């Protein structure tokens, strides 16, 4: 089997996912994909015709980001006609899954050079726009005890004993680390500003962050899922599935959950030979990835089993990983992951995460990979594990190692 190397990783800054003031909201979503896809051959100094596939994650693939946004993005980026594209949907880990599948193609020897990444305009295409049967088809909804994922996050907090203070403290730290990372210019290497059709910069810096957020600030916020959970029966459904829980403690709110934002990311992967031929320097090796299914009602407990599986397949132990990156979908998900893996906050999400930056659904996985790769280099460390909890009860993990 061929090794797969990561040659480059770029991402747009994340714009607020709101039509009224989101900086990326006043252009079609493809513009974000265009920004990152055009950056890769430009930065690498190679012909885009060398790229053998563009695999993009997107979670609401309808309307202007529908109908195979992978190919649409390749076309609008001016890639050679010979470059195909495909869109995939693994919900929240789509961006990482796109990278993993791209890597698998390289490892299998089917392609030499490939792009994996993702995009999501949450301002222009709202969450849930793609519909789906899980919540609506009675057979499916009843059989798997569907509840919205915020309820699952609150259920995790209840079941594993994370208080409102615990989850808020995690969020405060995330904001502080994110601000410090921008301050320290940790993201300079990877951020690609998005420009509009007349060449004016739309956004060059993450705009969702709230630096200086305190515990006291967060304590003012009302829980986001309490009304929904109590009034529409979702709490009761979740408790029927997890009957050791008396009552769900609704601890999550806008300040300790991932923000709604727009963004895109792309990772350039390829074989050793392709890199040598094109004069590209490998930054890391994609060691191993794994995606698993988990109990769908609580929904967000997949990262630990996925990570254990990836580690086992790689023949590695928890202690072999230098830095951990867990998507901050909700604070409780991260707290549970750290507890289950036995890892410390000091090596986890060292530059903050989606609570501060936001979580552009289809893109986030690829963004996290780039962010932690930059950090490995900055700290001169070797290994990192990136993981995300995934809707409908899944988890995806990827291990990378610098070369």
């Amino acid at each position: 089997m061929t090794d797969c190397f990561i040659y480059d990783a770029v991402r747009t800054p994340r714009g607020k996912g709101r039509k009224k003031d989101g900086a990326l909201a006043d252009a079609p979503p493809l513009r974000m994909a265009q920004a990152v896809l055009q950056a890769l051959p430009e930065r690498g100094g190679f012909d885009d015709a060398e790229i053998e596939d563009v695999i993009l994650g997107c979670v609401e693939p309808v309307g202007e980001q529908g109908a195979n946004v992978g190919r649409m993005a390749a076309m609008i980026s001016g890639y050679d006609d010979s470059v195909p594209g495909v869109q995939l949907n693994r919900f929240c880990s789509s961006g990482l899954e796109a990278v993993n599948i791209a890597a698998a193609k390289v490892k299998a020897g089917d392609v030499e050079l490939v792009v994996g990444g993702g995009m999501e305009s949450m301002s222009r295409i709202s969450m849930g726009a793609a519909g789906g049967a899980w919540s609506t088809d009675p057979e499916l909804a009843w059989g798997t005890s569907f509840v919205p994922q915020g309820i699952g996050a609150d259920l995790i907090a209840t079941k594993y004993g994370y208080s409102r203070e615990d989850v808020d403290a995690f969020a405060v730290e995330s904001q502080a680390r994110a601000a410090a990372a921008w301050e320290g210019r940790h993201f300079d290497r990877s951020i690609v500003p998005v420009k509009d059709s007349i060449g004016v910069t739309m956004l060059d810096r993450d705009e969702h962050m709230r630096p200086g957020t305190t515990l006291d600030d967060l304590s003012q916020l009302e829980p986001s899922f309490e009304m929904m959970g109590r009034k529409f029966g979702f709490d009761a459904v979740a408790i029927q599935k997890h009957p050791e829980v008396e009552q769900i403690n609704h601890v999550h709110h806008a300040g300790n959950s991932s923000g709604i934002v727009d963004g895109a990311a792309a990772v350039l992967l390829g074989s050793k030979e392709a890199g040598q031929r094109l004069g590209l320097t490998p930054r890391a090796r994609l060691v191993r990835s794994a995606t698993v299914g988990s109990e769908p009602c609580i929904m967000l407990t997949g990262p630990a089993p996925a990570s254990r599986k990836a580690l086992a397949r790689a023949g590695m132990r928890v202690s072999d990983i230098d830095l951990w990156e867990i998507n901050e979908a909700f604070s409780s998900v991260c707290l549970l992951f750290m507890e289950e893996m036995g890892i410390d906050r000091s090596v986890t999400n060292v530059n903050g995460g989606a609570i501060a930056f936001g979580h552009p659904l289809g893109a986030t996985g690829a963004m996290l990979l780039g962010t932690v790769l930059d950090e490995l280099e900055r700290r001169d460390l070797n290994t990192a594990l990136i993981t995300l909890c995934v809707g409908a009860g899944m988890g995806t993990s990827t291990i990378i190692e610098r070369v």
Partner: protein
Amino acid sequence: MAIIDYRVEDEFAILTWDDASRPMNVLSGDALAELSAGIEKAAADDDVKGIILTSAKQGVFAAGGDLEQIESLGSGSIDAEDLLKRTSGVLAQLRRMETCGKPVVAALNGVTLGGGYEIALACHRRILVNQRHALVGLPEAGLGLMPGAGGTQRLPRLIGVGSALALIMQGKQLDPEQALEKGLVDELVEPDDLIDAAKKWIVESGNATQPWDEKRYEVPGGGANSVTFAQTMMGSNAMTHANTFGNMPSQQAILQAVYEGLPLPMDRAGKVETRQFIRVLQDPTARSMLRTLFFSLQRCQKGARRPKDVPRFDVKKVGIVGAGLMGQGIAHVSAKAHIDVVLLDRDLASAERGKEKVKTTLGRRLQKGRTTPDRIEAILGRIHPTESYHDLRGCDVVVEAVFEDRELKARVTKAADAELSDDAIFASNTSGLPITGLAEASSRPENFIGLHFFSPVERMQMVEIVVGEQTSKETLAKAWDYVLKIKKAGIVVNDSPGFYTSRVFGTFISEGNHLLVEGVAPALIENAAKAAGMPMPPLGISDQVGLGTMYKVAKQAEKDATAAGRVWEPSPAQAIIASLIEDHDRWGAYPPPKADGSQRKPGGFYDYEDGAKRLWPELGKAMSQWIVSGAEQPSAEVVRRRYLFVQCLEAVRCLEQGVITDVRDGDVGVIMAVGFPAFTGGPFTYIDNYGVDAFVRDADELASRYGARFEPPESLRKMAVTGKTFY
């Protein structure tokens, strides 16, 4: 034609439904065949401009489907393909009616429910008489069934998915005003104008195309691809799943039929509904509920087990001794049934307070628009508070509803006896003291019987009629006549401590205690009970009833034991209750005041704060002396089974011991009286459906793990061996 009369009047074909073989019109195969024939005839007749469908039954258009036929389907296994074919015939006939090219008006002269309303839905216009009792709707879900003649497809297309689901899922029956408002009917008229109104519509409008067959039709509020529909489905799925705990297949099936059918044209949508309808019939739940909650309950409401050879006894005057909660309720329902009530308590003020409470209850009904000031006045006018036993003179029935104290009851019995004629009967509303013993105080023990009412009496339909050793057949018949007159349903039980329903219910509470002592998490104890279909969980009930009650019982047992020179050893559950009260001053949800008259904080197994209740977090720690700590937690399914099994086994013991003699009474009694899960059809039906053999096997398994109370009675083992069932 035998069922549907066909006549042409001017340019109108009038089809009049009058099934002489039944008290009401029901949607039978024969009726549909004649309906179809009539439609074809009218469609082919060039002189006919429109068709009017009505009924000759007084106040009834059609009352629904043929429930007996549906129940009988349960006797054998269901051939899905055959049933699919037969039902598709029904759907095709209704479809043909709405596409026959001529306008069809449903001239609804009264009650139009279930299958009757599904026929009306396939008409182009629905005109209803504006009479209070002319209820309209699809009540099938109330019996664990679902509409099967297009109702789940046409109603959402007519009034929108959200409104339709709300009505179908709850089996709502609407009065004419509500039916018009919700769009179930198009027009209300006075009875004499019904046919004229139908003719007028045919002449003036006469649109023979259903809305859903129009080219630019859109489902009101949003069709299959709308956000509204997705949200409605998501919300309905969660709410219904939450409320039914997945125990009611018909609820999911109704949602499924609407979900799958809405995107389809009407020609194909029906089949989607039929699939779900058959799924519902294939599951034992609907048949079981139908048998118990419809047919068996009807027997109890009609007094099928009343001794037949005793002449009917007209109860005109009833005496009620004890104007407490139960006495008030019994007075209320008696007066409402036009019976004169003597409400007696130890002093006039107490008796009058009882009457006052009835007035309060009626006042609440008035606020909800369920009664009128005139009716309230009439009811209250029939209640005569008193403190004198002499006023019991002339009573046909006396119901004793005083505290559960043998001596007190004996005094009441003697005092009443002195005033009553030999014809009158005396009934004790004891909830568990054996009737034979209480009857010893009576000079006419053959006239003594038990009438065990349930609280709140105005709402609880069931009464246990308890026959003592000396109770005569005449007394039993008279008790029945009283029960039926106050519109209650009765089951007949023989004397035994706790009778029947309380014995069964007691095992449920007690199982909760066993689980607690075993160290099962209180949340799991409570949640699994709800999942089993119990209306309230055991620890929650204990708090509601009051821990003091249980405490007193244990204290009495301790006193008795000590007096008899035995060593008293409380059970762990008794010790926990005692400790809650003695060490923690926790008496339940409604604690009695302290000795100095000050109020106690509510609290027992639960804390009660700001209108919310949470399990007392310290329970495990505080009771660690009696509760196993660190116990491995069972699955909710195992706990759920324990609750159902322990009650079923007690029911079988009652049958074996002759406390009950009829499994139908046994099934309906505990569902109606003490909230045994309705979806099961009752404990005996539950065992039958589980399979007697499998039940015995699993009971033995439970017995080996959790105790002898799960050991199946001998009679049940024999049934398992011989392959017998209860039904």
